[in-house]
């Protein structure tokens, strides 16, 4: 490893990790702002200009709050659960390419912290690890509401993960790669948006979007923390920074999901092939980053927007939708993807 490579690695590590953590913090503000706007309120606007320092103030508040551990709680699991939620969510960021690869000294470097050939699998695996944090939190709290929340969350994640993975499988069949950079930029050529690869890409997008909401425990699938039924669900008994960690995990998962959606279906940093022609790879990477953030930002907004529009699903409706609607559709879609690739309209595969 040369010195340049080490510098590049360090830059990517600090830059992208800091970016996602900042985004997760800003998302908490955005959530409150957007919800306020939709309800014709102003939202937080006291701390800093436009309320921008609100996440910071919240963080300071969380640190100074008393940590309460319930008497009957499982001491080890109770303390482990928040880390189990936030850890995988932040870890998944490592394989997300934020822009086009950069050419340095004649060598191409992918703009993700870790350029692994099975990036898609890594994200899905880490995403499913998150359920353990929620489950542990629910179990260790020694509270029936928490347990119900954890229980629901695990059942929900298991059900929707199938649809999620199968829809990704269809996309992988189309693009013929598990590397996230190659999904939008392969062999020096920009790949078409998978969303526009009708019908397989479009169906996969629909299924993935719905499953992503369930996977991140967001409305309308936030049964794990249904306030009206379960007080706060799995995080009822949590306070202080442990509580905040659950939220960092949730919002980091949202950021990762938005990035994944943008890469898998909206072509990541590509802009109808306009940016690929730029000679200077650094400039191209910078512009690509802006485009990518706009696309991912749209999905982050969508997550919040949907939350304040669609009411929560009932438990049996959720299961019905997961097993009887999304699963058959995505299974058919995988078969269809094979047909599309063989017919050549998918222009994927080796």
């Amino acid at each position, binding site marked *: 490893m040369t010195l340049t490579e080490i510098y590049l690695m360090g830059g990517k590590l600090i830059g992208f990790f800091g970016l996602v953590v900042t985004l997760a913090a800003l998302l908490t503000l955005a959530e409150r702002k957007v919800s306020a*706007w*939709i309800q*014709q309120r*102003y939202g937080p606007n006291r701390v800093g200009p436009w309320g921008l320092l609100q996440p910071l103030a919240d963080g300071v508040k969380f640190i100074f709050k008393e940590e309460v551990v319930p008497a009957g709680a499982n001491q080890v699991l109770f303390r482990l659960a928040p880390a189990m939620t936030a850890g995988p969510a932040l870890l998944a960021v490592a394989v997300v390419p934020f822009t086009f690869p950069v050419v340095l000294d004649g060598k191409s470097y992918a703009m993700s912290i870790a350029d692994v050939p099975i990036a898609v699998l890594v994200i899905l695996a880490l995403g499913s690890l998150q359920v353990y944090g929620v489950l542990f939190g629910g179990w260790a709290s020694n509270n029936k509401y928490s347990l119900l929340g954890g229980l629901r969350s695990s059942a929900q994640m298991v059900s929707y993960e199938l649809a999620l993975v199968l829809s990704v499988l269809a996309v992988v069949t189309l693009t013929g790669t598990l590397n996230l950079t190659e999904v939008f930029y392969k062999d020096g050529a920009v790949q078409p948006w998978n969303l526009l690869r009708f019908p397989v890409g479009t169906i996969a997008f629909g299924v993935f979007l719905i499953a992503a909401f369930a996977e991140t425990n967001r409305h309308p699938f936030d049964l794990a923390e249904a306030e009206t039924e379960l007080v706060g669900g799995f995080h009822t008994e949590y306070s202080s920074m442990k509580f905040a960690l659950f939220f960092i995990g949730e919002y980091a998962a949202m950021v990762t999901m938005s990035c994944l959606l943008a890469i898998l279906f909206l072509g990541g940093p590509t802009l109808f092939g306009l940016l690929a022609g730029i000679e200077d790879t650094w400039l191209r990477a910078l512009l690509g980053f802006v485009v990518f953030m706009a696309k991912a930002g749209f999905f982050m907004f969508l997550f919040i*927007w*949907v939350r304040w529009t*669609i009411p929560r699903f009932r438990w049996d409706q959720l299961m019905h939708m997961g097993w009887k609607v999304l699963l058959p559709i995505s299974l058919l879609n995988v078969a269809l993807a094979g047909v599309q690739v063989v017919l050549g309209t998918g222009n994927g595969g080796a």
Partner: protein
Amino acid sequence: MLQVKRVGKRLRLLEKLGIPEIVKGLGFTFKSMFRRKVTRQYPEEKYVAPTAAKGMPLLVQDPDGTPRCVACSMCEVVCPPKAITIKGTETERDIEREPEEFSIDMLRCILCGLCEEVCPKEAIVMSDRLELAQFSREDLVFHMDRLMTPVDQLRKRIDFTKEKFDKWHSRSS
């Protein structure tokens, strides 16, 4: 055989999935984001209380700078939580008596408005002052110097009470 009549049109697949309704709902919430905000930005935008609101009771000060109060102690007697303390004294003015000391303990006051209702001289009225917080207990006991308010500022409320309570002197004056 039972005949079932279908009311309305058969739902299409899209409608069964609820997608048109979801899109409609999303459109509505998006539009709502740009509607006029209804929040009052409180410390900057003060709430203007209607005349009927019963805020902190204040003493009416006539244009010549003297209190209207004749220290008859009717408000002191009627006050349910005993928030009012009056010490009367004789005066050279026509009204013969005036308060030497008049204090309202806002820690006790329940803003019932009985003092205003009972006052024969319209000398004590409920104002529109609703922000009653202070930093010390001492500050919450209001004495004459802080209770006396020029009659012009309280005119609206005085007229309102005349109409509301139909006081015996309201018909003559």
